[in-house]
């Protein structure tokens, strides 16, 4: 079947790349630093993504193209339901952020560089999404890393920005090396165990997703566990999971629009997408899925504690991103019990999160833009001055806190903010079902406690910024229409997207992987998963308290925040002072800076490894050479009467000797010819 979208699918990536080149080359001469070029390009990418989505939904067939690259590798495009919803989200949210940036970056002289780099950032992320093989995925993934480095360090004249960019690149690089090792080991296994079975076929590429998924059964399960854990290592780096999350809170050194891009549309979701993309491999390695679940659940909780004590508005949001990504990983990990349904839940939360987190960051940007500070303690009472920002941020906060109405379902759809709909699904249909079957309540506890803390820090932020007395001299003002318009669109999505798309989304993304195949792979991993009906049955029989709990903690957190930060019935200072050891540990971010930067990077890598290599090099390796040379010169001094003893003379003599030899030989050859 010939169809149009297959032939133009490459434009989804190619257009933003073209925009990158054009903006870089001509941006200085164009209005708004050439910012309209990436907007146009990404809008077109978005339209093609919509066309691809419609085609896949209609035909039920993925879009596939592949051609030879070099050696044993190929390049190609693979768009299945999973990739297509991701493409829609990335291109749409990135488009909105670009429109917002026209207003936000209006006064920055380096606009052309900004827009060029964000265009490349978007292109790289789109490239990750539609890669048809794991190496191409990795290549695009690395370009995402490069762009984050460039954009976080965008104001590189600020030492903190330069340091944050480097930290982001290096921390994610740790994960990337693990990921690359996973690819190398996967290649080894494909060659050893799979190639002999399929070598008759033409055009087989061992790293293509299709080839890998069809032959998972041939790879030994220990190797599969190793490979998936290494892949997950990459995801831990990119998606800011414990312990490689340390770069993300510092990543706010870039412009706020960059933070919005990193936290919502690009970069951090790549890690979750990696696990979802290679889910068939994970399902056959249930041990790895358990690691995913525990790391994710722990991260969700761990990061939310730090969200409670940060005073920088963007840092609070950064920790909330880490925490929400933890939820997505937790959801994927639950796949060990609920199978491919987990991918649907994780992706649904990923996309809802993209809307409300983009909204929150852009609202924060709007606030920073008008107040000129990041510090929540200096804000307050902004609501009267910035109504649109205040209301849109409130909506997004309700979504982040997961506020909704329990038990009420219309047409099988829960009623609540998008964050409620997706987070609820993860907690109830994921962790609860897991607990029900395995009697292990730890993931459930992670999910519920983190939900409570999330609601508290979210509304702490909102109440501190928008209510109470103004705490500064400035005169805040509402932002221009390009900014508030975008905020309104995102806030609307944050409120209703979850409800409107709940069932169709899970249905559509559920078709990414063949359920029987997934079942078969789970059995291969000596694991049993339940199907859709059993899942519904277990959820249907659950005690009402299970449904109530996520909402209760959400609303409870909101009220607690209201009591502390709006009514101020409880003094903040009585808890949040440095004499309180728990507060001190959390506020120092669990001494991560001391451990990662000072201990591992500076003391060990530089202080021990690098300096000792340098010492050995100068004193021992080169010392021996100089010693030999001194010995020869010394010995020559003794026999000076026979020899001149000057090393230079020996060198000259040698050169002369070689030249003379050449001459003699040439002469000999000439005489022979004669």
């Amino acid at each position, binding site marked *: 079947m010939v169809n149009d979208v297959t032939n133009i699918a490459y434009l989804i990536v190619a257009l933003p790349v073209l925009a990158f080149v054009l903006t870089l080359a001509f941006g200085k001469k164009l209005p708004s630093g050439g910012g309209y070029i990436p907007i146009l390009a990404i809008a077109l990418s978005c339209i093609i993504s919509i066309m691809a989505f419609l085609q896949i939904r209609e035909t039920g067939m993925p879009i596939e193209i592949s051609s030879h690259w070099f*050696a044993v590798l190929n390049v190609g495009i693979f768009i299945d339901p999973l990739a297509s919803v991701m493409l829609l989200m990335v291109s749409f949210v990135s488009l909105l952020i670009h429109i917002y940036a026209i207003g936000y970056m209006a006064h920055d002289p380096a606009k052309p560089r900004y827009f060029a780099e964000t265009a490349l950032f978007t292109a790289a992320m789109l490239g990750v999404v539609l890669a048809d093989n794991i190496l191409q995925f990795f*290549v695009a993934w690395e370009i995402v890393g490069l762009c984050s480095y460039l954009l976080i360090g965008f104001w590189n004249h600020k030492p903190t920005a330069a340091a944050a960019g480097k930290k982001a690149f290096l921390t994610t690089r740790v994960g990337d090396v693990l990921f690359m090792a996973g690819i190398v080991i996967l290649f080894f296994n494909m060659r050893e165990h799979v190639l002999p079975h399929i070598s008759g076929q033409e055009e087989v590429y061992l790293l293509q997703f299709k080839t890998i998924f069809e032959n998972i059964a041939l790879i030994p399960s220990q190797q599969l566990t190793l490979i998936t854990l290494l892949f997950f290592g990459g995801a831990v780096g990119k998606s800011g999971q414990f312990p490689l999350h340390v770069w993300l809170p510092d990543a706010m050194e870039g412009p706020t629009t960059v933070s919005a891009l990193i936290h919502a549309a690009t970069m951090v979701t790549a890690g979750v997408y990696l696990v979802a993309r290679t889910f068939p491999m994970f399902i056959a390695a249930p041990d790895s899925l358990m690691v995913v679940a525990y790391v994710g659940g722990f991260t969700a909780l761990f990061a939310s504690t730090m969200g409670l004590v940060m005073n920088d508005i963007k840092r609070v949001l950064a920790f909330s991103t880490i925490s929400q990504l933890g939820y997505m990983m937790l959801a994927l990990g639950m796949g060990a019990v609920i199978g491919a349904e987990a991918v649907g839940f994780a992706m649904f939360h990923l996309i809802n999160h993209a809307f409300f987190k983009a909204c929150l960051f852009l609202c924060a940007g709007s606030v920073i833009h008008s107040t000129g500070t990041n510090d929540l303690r200096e804000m307050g009472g902004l609501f009267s001055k910035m109504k649109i920002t205040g209301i849109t941020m409130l909506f997004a906060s309700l979504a982040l806190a997961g506020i909704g109405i329990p038990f009420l379902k219309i047409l099988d759809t829960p009623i609540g903010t998008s964050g409620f709909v997706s987070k609820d699904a993860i907690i109830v249909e994921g962790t609860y079902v897991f607990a029900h079957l395995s009697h292990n309540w730890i993931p459930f506890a992670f999910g519920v406690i983190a939900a409570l803390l999330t609601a508290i820090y979210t509304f702490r932020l909102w109440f501190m910024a928008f209510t109470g007395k103004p705490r500064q001299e400035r005169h805040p003002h509402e932002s221009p229409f390009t900014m508030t318009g975008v905020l309104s669109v995102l806030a609307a999505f944050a409120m209703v997207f979850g409800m409107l798309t709940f069932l169709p989304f899970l249905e559509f993304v559920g078709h990414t992987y063949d359920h029987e195949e997934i079942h078969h792979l789970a059995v291969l991993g000596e694991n049993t998963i339940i199907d859709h009906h059993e899942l519904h049955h277990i959820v249907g029989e659950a005690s009402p308290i299970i449904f109530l709990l996520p909402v209760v903690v959400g609303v409870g957190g909101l009220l607690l925040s209201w009591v502390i930060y709006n009514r101020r019935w409880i003094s903040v200072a009585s808890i949040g002072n440095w004499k309180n050891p728990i507060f001190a540990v959390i506020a120092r971010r669990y001494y991560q800076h001391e451990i990662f930067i000072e201990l591992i990077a500076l003391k060990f890598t530089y202080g021990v490894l690098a300096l000792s290599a340098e010492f050995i090099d100068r004193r021992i390796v080169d010392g021996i050479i100089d010693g030999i040379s001194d010995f020869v010169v010394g010995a020559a001094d003794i026999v000076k009467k026979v020899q001149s003893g000057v090393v230079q003379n020996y060198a000259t003599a040698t050169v002369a000797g070689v030249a003379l030899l050449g001459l003699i030989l040439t002469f000999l050859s000439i005489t022979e010819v004669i």
Partner: protein
Amino acid sequence: MQSIYLSLILFLPLIGAALTFFIKPREIARVVALVFSVIPLFITAMLFSRFNSDLGFLQFQFAENYTWISSLGINYSLGVDSVSMPLILLNAILCPLTIIYSWGEHKDANQYFALLMILQAGVFGVFMSLDFFLFYIFWELTLIPLYFLISIWGGPNKDYAAIKFFIYTHVASLVMLLGIFALYFSTNVNTFYIPDLLRAFAGIDDVMKVAIFLAIFFGFMVKMPTVPFHTWLPDAHVEAPTAGSVLLAGVLLKMGGYGLFRVLLPMIQDMGTYQGQIITIMAFFGVLSILYGTFAALAQTDLKKMVAYSSVSHMGFVMLGAAAFNVISVSGAMFQQFSHGLITAVLFMSVGVIQHNVHTRIISELGGLTKKMPKLSFIMMGGFMASLGLPLMCGFVAEFLVLTGSYLTLPVYAILAFLGIVATAGYHLWALQRAMFGSFNEKLGDIKDTVSYEWIPMGILVLLIIYFGFNPAPVSDIFQAASSVIPGVMQI
């Protein structure tokens, strides 16, 4: 009828050197030098486009063969195959770019350009010679111009560096020469023609084989250079003028790797019971160079010295890939030679611009240079990203092939090599952060950005790096063909 193209490529730079030497005005000298290095580039490009990479082991194209000393079996014998073709292209590309980069050289410019061109000719000769004796003559010929480049145009400690470079590599070459003579006398073919010697190698007794192998190996190890025989390199680089450093790291080091592929890998199959030990030695020194070079680079305070140690580390990948002895790893190692040649040239040129315009290369004395040197920062960033192995730049292709291939046959060494990757990114980014970013160090005063004759060659190199990162096939296919015909190498 014999082909003449290779001799043209080889002798045009020498003729150019002779002409340049006697033309005092630098404005004319540099034009002559450029013309005589661009013509070989065109001829090389033409040969490259006509090149047939499907030929088997030791089947040479564009070959020339003239008897030189028949009694000893020494011939003037040139030819290219898929091992050497891309390296000849690399040399042909780098030399004109280096000459353009040196356009502003004032001190005895005519001699400077003449020496660069002799260097170019010597490297061409090494890559083309099919006669071991001829190979050795060109191998030694490259020492002389570089010795003078360092000792005349070098930095404050130039005498020490020049003599150390000369004696160190020369002693290693003499050991190699012993190996060559041993090979010649233990086979009874009475020729220095490399293919014949390699075919006859199998007939030598085992201990002698090992001795010959190790003697020649030592010569190549020092040239590459492999830890612990590398200490001449940082000193030479620190003192050498930029053009000298570019060619030293860009093509001279590649002669060591080339020798490995041309002469030693075909011998491995015949090493009998010693094969495993030989491979272990190569893999060990390869990984040692990767890790040691990386950490030593991290400790450097001089930007140029850091780049020099990065070369040691990157050349370790060549050794590791060769040791793993399968098509993927060996072709990756060959590609690493090609790609490192392009990348390191950008790095040394960038550092050269800083040295020239800021008058210091000590990282702690720099800071915030992007503000005053936006063009240089842009290009330098490209070079640094390529050097740390960013995908879609040619360095990644090479490293990925080497690591993937090495894991097939030497998994432990491959995993050790992985450990260096994060630290490699670390020293590059740390140097950029301290030298280029942050607030501008006002003590440096008014600094000019790079001028066109500097950034044009650097820009061309960055574009080539990106081109071969996107589309490695034109070169990597040739190397794949080359490695698949080496006897005994594991096929994929």
